[in-house]
């Protein structure tokens, strides 16, 4: 039986995956380090040209960004602008910049397709600014693809918060 046929009868492929769990974990913790260090241009390079950064509204965590109002629904162009703004001098919400510390755990592969892999991981992002401590808790649901050089990249980067409201956090001004 040809490899192609095997793939057809076994959609949950145990071979030739887009990424292994080990690779996914390494990708996620490196990403978290870039964000905590505010290396946002390097971080942006992890997002594919058709990539999107999504944070659903807290009352509609399962919803589709085309049908429901999200907190953040950036295409690559808006995300590029977001990074520029955050690195600029007029983003008062991040002036001075928050200190953040991300704990990313429980990474799992949810689904493998021919050219993408759907992964999830839990996160707790601690944020410190103006003598306040806020914790943003939730899970990531990402679609990862291989970039031109074989590196993993985001096609969709979704951060689903478990918080019921953004109180007392008030704002979501850094990249979650």
């Amino acid at each position: 039986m040809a490899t192609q046929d095997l793939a057809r009868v076994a959609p949950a492929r145990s071979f030739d995956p887009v990424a292994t769990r080990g690779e996914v974990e390494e990708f996620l913790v490196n990403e978290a380090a870039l964000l905590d260090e505010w290396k946002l241009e390097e971080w942006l390079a992890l997002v594919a040209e058709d990539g999107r950064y999504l944070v659903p509204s807290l009352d509609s965590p399962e919803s589709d960004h085309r049908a429901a109002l999200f907190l953040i629904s950036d295409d690559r162009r808006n995300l590029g602008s977001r990074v520029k703004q955050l690195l600029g001098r007029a983003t008062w919400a991040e002036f001075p910049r928050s200190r953040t510390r991300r704990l990313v755990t429980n990474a799992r592969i949810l689904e493998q397709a021919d050219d993408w892999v759907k992964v999830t991981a839990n996160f707790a992002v601690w944020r410190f600014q103006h003598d306040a401590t806020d914790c943003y808790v939730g899970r990531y649901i990402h679609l990862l693809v291989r970039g031109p050089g074989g590196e993993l990249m985001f096609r969709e980067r979704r951060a689903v918060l478990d918080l019921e409201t953004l109180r007392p956090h008030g704002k979501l001004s850094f990249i979650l």
Partner: protein
Amino acid sequence: MEKVEPRDFIVDDRENGTFRVNRRAFADPEILETERREIFDRTWLYAAHVSEINTPGSFLTRKVGGRPVIVTSDALGKPHVFLNSCPHRGNLVCLEKSGSARALTCFYHAWSFDLSGKLLGVPDAEAYTPAFKREEMGLRPVPRMENYRGMIFVSYDPDIVNLESYLGDAREYLDYMIDFGGEEVEIVQGAQAYSMKANWKLLVENSMDGYHALSTHQRYFRQYLPDIGMDPAAWVGANRTMGRGVNLGGGHAMVESPQRPTPLTGSAKAELDAIRARLVEKHGPDRAHRIADYTRNLFIFPNLILISLWHTVRTFYPLRPDYMEIDAWALFPKNDSQQLRQKRMDNFLSFLGPGGFATPDDVSGLEGCQRGFATMRELPWSDISRGMGREEPSSQDELQMRAFWRRWNALIQGKRGPTDCADRPERRLAAE
């Protein structure tokens, strides 16, 4: 600290053009108590939109004016607003955020109610005496509820004037906020529930403050707009478009400007032109012009803001002098195409909400004001006098805020009759 009497919180010298607010008004717990009693318990408060309970048997719960309420659509589709507390012993009757049900049951002793509030079931009811009036033990409606074109308002004052009289001159502009799409509007799924560590009146001011836009929101105008290929000149250039600030009476107020290019007017030009043509057909050219060719931030006293640039509805309520909860939604035409709906949401999110390119900077600004108020013994006054001598103050001036403060000032002193909220420069001009 020396005691400031409520009558001393505002210095309003119309003759000389001085308007100051004592910063104690933003920080004093006693003032918040007075505000709850004299303002929030005596005004009309926005509660919900009928589109949120659009099928018979649907319900939602939220807080309005500090009380937990249940908003329902009964079996016949009639909207109700009830206090969310069991008439028996007080437990919250409904614990879910929203849903659909034939009956709501308080889990404490299993009393159940239908969605018109009627008491349905009381376990072991034979234990009650004839003095127990079952028909009086239904869910308690809020003292007043009125539905203005789909917007449900409530009041905890049983004697308040009807909603249309209360809205007064603001009503026409509220109509524009509803009519802009040429058809019915609905609240889009996805609420923005956030907060600010700031006094609620700072958000009243901020929500209709043209003056702060260029400095606080420069990243939106000078970075984001060019990043998506737009020329920000109409917003930030030397000949930028200016609007006016308007006192609408009763504490209601507005800033209004001729329509300027936004991400939406660029991306959805054809659709918006078609809607404008429909508006002309439906309302005639004059009214269509007033609806479609201006942008407005409309403030309905004491805590409702509608902003036409993004079609948002925003309300807020103070839990403490230095902390408020904010709820905001998008109010969009029901039958927009999928593409137009998406463009409206993108436009909304580029500016508004906790993750937008503007609102977080307002959060930081207002929280910064509140932290600054710790100096109020040495620096007791905020100045809100911009444009006080002008016959028609601009949207960069502060008449619209003075209109709010004058009504606030009257109410916290227990003056419940009409308030003159205008600057009245004409009187001074006539005397000169």
